């Protein structure tokens, strides 16, 4: 399956000056030929004479390389300095210097944002029940107000009265609402200030009087629980603080890419390393805000105990933390897991962006076979097998990373087969949330029944593919290194990005040659880019 026109730069014809020349020739031609040309009615495009390719002058090559590597044209002083250098090429040392620069890191971050569709702007991380709204300067959680006050109303605009035993005094309104007053709190997002928060919402007990652990989803159901000290388990309304967290997740990937440039490390590290970048908002999020998640974020995909002590306000303090061997670089980063929330989507993105293989339907469309839908295994269902025979095993590499969120299903807590989940699935007893979310507890077909009680990623897994689940995405990366797909795609992607067009079949030799250099360099991305921008093809422009 060949990739189509994925992530290609726009292509266009000739610059204006050339077009004007061609148009002038066209006018001259039509005047001379009179009605002859008109009778044939050729298209305008067919009449344009294609200009011969331009071999870029040294200064124009210098400019193009600067734009691709640094994202900016050279200064006039740099042009003048170039004139003093011997030769007709851009000096090697200068290219190396550019490739070591922060500007190149920014360009590479940009490329990888395109490859990974790295954005979480549409993600809501925290349950709406844990989000404040502000009415007349008083913050309260309207989603669960009825549990506190019997009605969806805020507290009274007066200081709260709290007894020695911690009881919050309430006043019953004419409509029957039990309303308390407010207390002043220094919130975690602005600790130097105080805000008015309804006293029920501001409660900071770890365990309620009725015994509920307040920093769990059950805490939202218990009127004896609030948002915790400094409101740490809740989120202010609006998107400012939320965006600080999601932007930080996105930046984690950027920083991994930038580190690759800074250290001139192996490109493979990006897909295999265990290092994670965190700042204050991220540490706060993983420590406290996952208490009331919007989606499945537990168990966390990173080891929260290893996180440094940073306050939410430490927005610009970034610390790299080494996590466990289960990590597979950007492929298990929170941003990637949240951007692609199903294992199929994760595998699909990896195949598209890093193996240059798209899961496309055949040109004639997917054949419709009567009764095919009765086959529950997509790997063999007629029509579906065209993609899913490959996609399903590939997706199982993320089998221990939760879907509909970002969580890590470690083997000690989530064995491949769980007796209790099988028992509830077969006995009619209610299944726990854990079983429902991560194990096969329902069989809609006889062929699914043998998998009851198994981790969902084992459903229809063939014996030879089962170890994919346990080995994770790193195995996928290493296996595609062995057959050469990974490095060839890295070269192809970089070449198409720099040349601004898809490579054609005749250019396989270019890919092979540069791929060999890439491997010999130790998968150094800087070396890869240098090989491409100094290739003769880069200098020939049409």
């Amino acid at each position: 399956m060949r990739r189509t026109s994925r992530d290609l730069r726009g292509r266009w014809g000739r610059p204006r000056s050339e077009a004007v020349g061609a148009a002038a020739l066209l006018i001259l031609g039509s005047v001379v030929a009179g009605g002859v040309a008109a009778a044939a009615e050729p298209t305008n495009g067919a009449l344009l004479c294609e200009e011969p390719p331009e071999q870029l002058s040294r200064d124009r090559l210098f400019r193009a390389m600067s734009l691709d590597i640094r994202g900016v044209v050279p200064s006039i002083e740099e042009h003048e300095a170039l004139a003093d250098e011997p030769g007709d090429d851009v000096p090697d040392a200068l290219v190396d210097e550019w490739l070591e620069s922060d500007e190149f890191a920014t360009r590479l971050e940009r490329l990888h944002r395109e490859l990974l569709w790295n954005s979480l702007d549409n993600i809501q991380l925290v349950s709406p029940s844990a989000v404040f709204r502000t009415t007349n300067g008083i913050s309260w959680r309207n989603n669960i107000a009825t549990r506190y006050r019997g009605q969806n109303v805020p507290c009274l605009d007066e200081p709260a009265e709290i007894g020695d035993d911690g009881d919050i005094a309430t006043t019953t309104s004419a409509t029957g609402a039990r309303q308390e007053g407010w207390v002043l709190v220094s919130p975690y997002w602005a600790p130097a200030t105080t805000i008015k928060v309804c006293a029920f919402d501001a409660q900071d007990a770890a365990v309620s009087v009725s015994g509920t652990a307040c920093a769990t989803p059950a805490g939202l159901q218990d009127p004896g629980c609030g948002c915790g000290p400094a409101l740490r388990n809740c989120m202010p309304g609006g998107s400012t603080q939320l965006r600080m967290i999601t932007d930080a997740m996105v930046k984690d990937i950027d920083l991994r890419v930038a580190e690759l440039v800074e250290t001139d490390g192996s490109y493979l590290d990006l897909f295999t390393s265990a290092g994670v970048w965190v700042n204050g908002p991220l540490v706060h999020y993983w420590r406290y805000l996952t208490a009331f998640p919007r989606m499945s974020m537990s168990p966390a995909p990173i080891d929260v105990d290893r996180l440094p002590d940073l306050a939410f306000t430490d927005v610009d303090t970034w610390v790299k933390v080494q996590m466990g061997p289960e990590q597979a670089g950007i492929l298990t980063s929170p941003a990637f897991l949240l951007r692609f929330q199903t294992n199929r989507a994760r595998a699909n993105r990896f195949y598209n962006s890093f193996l240059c293989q798209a899961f496309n339907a055949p040109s004639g469309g997917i054949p419709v076979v009567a009764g095919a839908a009765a086959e529950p295994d997509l790997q063999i269902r007629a029509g579906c097998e065209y993609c899913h025979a490959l996609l399903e095993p590939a997706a199982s590499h993320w089998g221990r990373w939760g879907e509909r969120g970002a969580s890590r299903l470690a083997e000690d807590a989530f064995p491949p087969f769980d007796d209790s989940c099988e028992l509830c699935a077969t006995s009619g007893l209610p299944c726990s949330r854990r079983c429902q979310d991560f194990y096969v507890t329902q069989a809609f077909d006889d062929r699914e029944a043998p998998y009851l009680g198994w981790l969902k990623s084992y459903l229809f897994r063939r014996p030879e593919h089962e170890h994919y689940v346990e080995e994770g995405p790193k195995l996928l990366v290493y296996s595609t290194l062995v057959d050469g797909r990974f490095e060839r795609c890295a070269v192809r992607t970089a070449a198409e990005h720099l040349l601004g067009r898809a490579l054609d079949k005749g250019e396989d030799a270019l890919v092979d040659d540069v791929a060999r250099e890439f491997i010999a360099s130790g998968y150094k991305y800087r070396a890869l880019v240098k090989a491409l921008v100094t290739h003769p093809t880069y200098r020939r422009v049409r």
Partner: protein
Amino acid sequence: MMPFWRAGLALVVAAAAMAVGGCDYESRVAPQARPTPRAPGTVPDDPGVTPPIGTDPTPEVVEPDPVVVTPTTVTVGDETPVVIDLPAPPPEAPTRPRRRMDIDQLDASLRRVTGGLTWTVMVGSREDNQFEVLSSTLGKPDFIEKTQEDLTPSALFQKFLSEAARTVCERLAREEVAGTRPEPVLMVEASPTDTWESAPEAIEANLERLLLRFHGRRLAPADVGFDRWRWLFQSALHVSSDPVVAWRTVCAGLIMHPDFYTY
């Protein structure tokens, strides 16, 4: 002697062939008999002179077979189709297409060539970078609804670029004249009062500098590509009678030219 009308017809047919033939500039005249090569030792125009006795014998000259050309008579109204088999063009070495800068490159490059200015608009007391405000409109992907950057130099792009160029160049010229910029960018070799009549060399030197700065092109005044910029300056000066306006116009022209925003 060829009649006048036939000579005229031949001229028209030849011109039409050139026009319709389009891009193949090779001549397509019918093959003619080559002239007989002159034997060594013979005198031009006197093939019958015999070399003197005692000299080396002249090698035998093998006369090539004459190329017989059967003329095709073409008359007015004759619609006999003629098949012309042109040789296949040689394979062309791979190239890369010119590319439009992306929005980040454009923003950074505009700052670089203008010494720090970019396309901004004052909103109250806040200065908004229009490349950021309009990034989505200008094709920058958000990776949620749009995953590929649109790099076509569309009419919309040209419109915004024109607006950016006029905004930046107006400010650049104004601040340079007022002396509020750290160092001049637009009028370095020429002063704001220099005209074509008073200082043509300074004007040309300044144009040379601007072309290198904005386009990375090292053009001398004698080069063909230089004419259009000289013409633009002179025309703007002619219309406005103000060298600063003329330099402002050149600045906007340089930014809107494909040599600036493509590479």
